């Protein structure tokens, strides 16, 4: 019956880590041309792991909640961990998504994989 998991409600009501990390080590932006949802995720890397993540999001409430959950979830993850995340993992983590909300998991995975790409580029840049 409920259209949102408790976690999603909690997070879109009280969103965590709203905004942008200044001078981020990794940054990603994805947008869904169909539903119009947008997510900008930025992160600071500390010792090869996500130290802090912040998000700006536009879209349905489930997307906003998912985005907020993601910023807490990925703290402590390595780049490879981000790459390993898939839609099923996101869906589980947010406590389930109702039928019309699967785009939230897709967009979250897209932005996380893009973040990992960006992280790789910056770390390569740093290593040169």
């Amino acid at each position, binding site marked *: 019956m409920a259209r949102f998991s408790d976690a999603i*409600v909690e997070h*879109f009501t009280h969103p965590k880590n709203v905004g942008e990390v200044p001078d981020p080590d990794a940054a990603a932006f994805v947008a869904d041309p169909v539903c119009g949802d947008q997510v900008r995720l930025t992160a600071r890397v500390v010792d090869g792991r996500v130290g802090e993540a912040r998000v*700006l999001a*536009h879209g*349905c409430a489930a997307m*906003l909640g998912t985005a907020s959950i993601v910023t807490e979830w990925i703290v402590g993850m390595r780049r490879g961990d981000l790459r390993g995340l898939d839609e099923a993992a996101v869906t589980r983590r947010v406590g389930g998504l109702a039928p*019309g*909300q699967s785009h939230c998991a897709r967009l979250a995975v897209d932005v996380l994989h893009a973040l990992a790409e960006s992280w790789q580029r910056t770390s390569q840049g740093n290593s040169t």
Partner: protein
Amino acid sequence: MTPPSSGRERASGRALYFDNNATTPLLPSVKAAMREAMATYGNPSSAHFYGEASAALVARARASVAALLGCEPEQVVFNSGGSEGASSVIVGTALRHLWEGGHIVTSAVEHPAVLRACEFVRGLGFELSVLPVDGAGRVDPASVRSALRPGTRLVSIMHANNETGALQPLEDLSSIALEAGVPFHCDAVQSAGKEPVRLREGLLTISAHKFHGPQGVGALVLRGDVPLQRLVFGGEQEHGHRAGTENVLGIVGLGAAADSAQDRLAEPDHESRRRAIGGHLREGLASMDGAMVNSPLGDCLPETVNVSFRKLRGDTIVDMLSARGVAVSSGSACHSTHPEPSHVLLAMGLSLDRALGAVRFSCSCLTTHGEIDEVLAVTEQTVHQLYSASPSRSR
């Protein structure tokens, strides 16, 4: 208003109902009448004393509805609500003229009950004129006049719009049709019980749950000799216009709601009270960051304030407010992945973005100034939160 039994709003400690255009709570007098009627259980068509007792309840409610709408009791046909009412008029007209075919006039801002029924009868070979509206959502009476032609079977135009509250110039619109000898149907579901609704001839649709009666019961008022094929067959209930054992409890509730609406309409401060409540809400919303009010300022139900927030999505605001114990509605009808923009707002010429951003706040006679203050505060906070989280932070 009593909060529903749900965990969510108890957590937020708040339950503010601002979705009265979707449905309204039962008034205590309506509940009491229905509870009392539960003891009577005859079939109103039965010849014996149980049947008579039930028939008396139905007759009393019929008189109440007739009094509210200024018609004769025999002109009231009870049915299952606004959708059945509108469908029975559109489809019933088309089936009555199935072989000759014909032409039906309606407007672009009607409720889906009217518009989809019209789409259906177009498939039966009828021609359709869907009249445009101006920026305030209003039909130009002159456009009705020029749409009429020899084969026109019906003009169906609503009184108050459910999304914006905009009122049509009913008197002018209906006169043009009736003077041309064309039956006029008015979907008065949103105005009945709030505004005085009078139609000297033709058809009128109301639904009890929009003015504090129960859901699933309504009435079609049939004035004059309108050719209409009935769609529910069986016994001779409702003077042969609508078969089926009467929804006695529902009808009793509708009657009690009509009584109470008539009392309210007769109160000297009815209009000023409505305007004070609606004005307070409207002004509060209009003054917020990024707000654009979509409901017209004049000739509009004051209880309804439809507002868009620049670059925000209406369905998101509805969900966020719901999580915070405030019940409102988005302009869009369905809640699928792709929110659909309101056909009403698009017909008024609003942009797709603005239509997708629409949120409808609707009050009832039970709404208080204090509740409005609280809703304004929560809404402002929510809108602010959404703006600060937006990737395109400008507005």
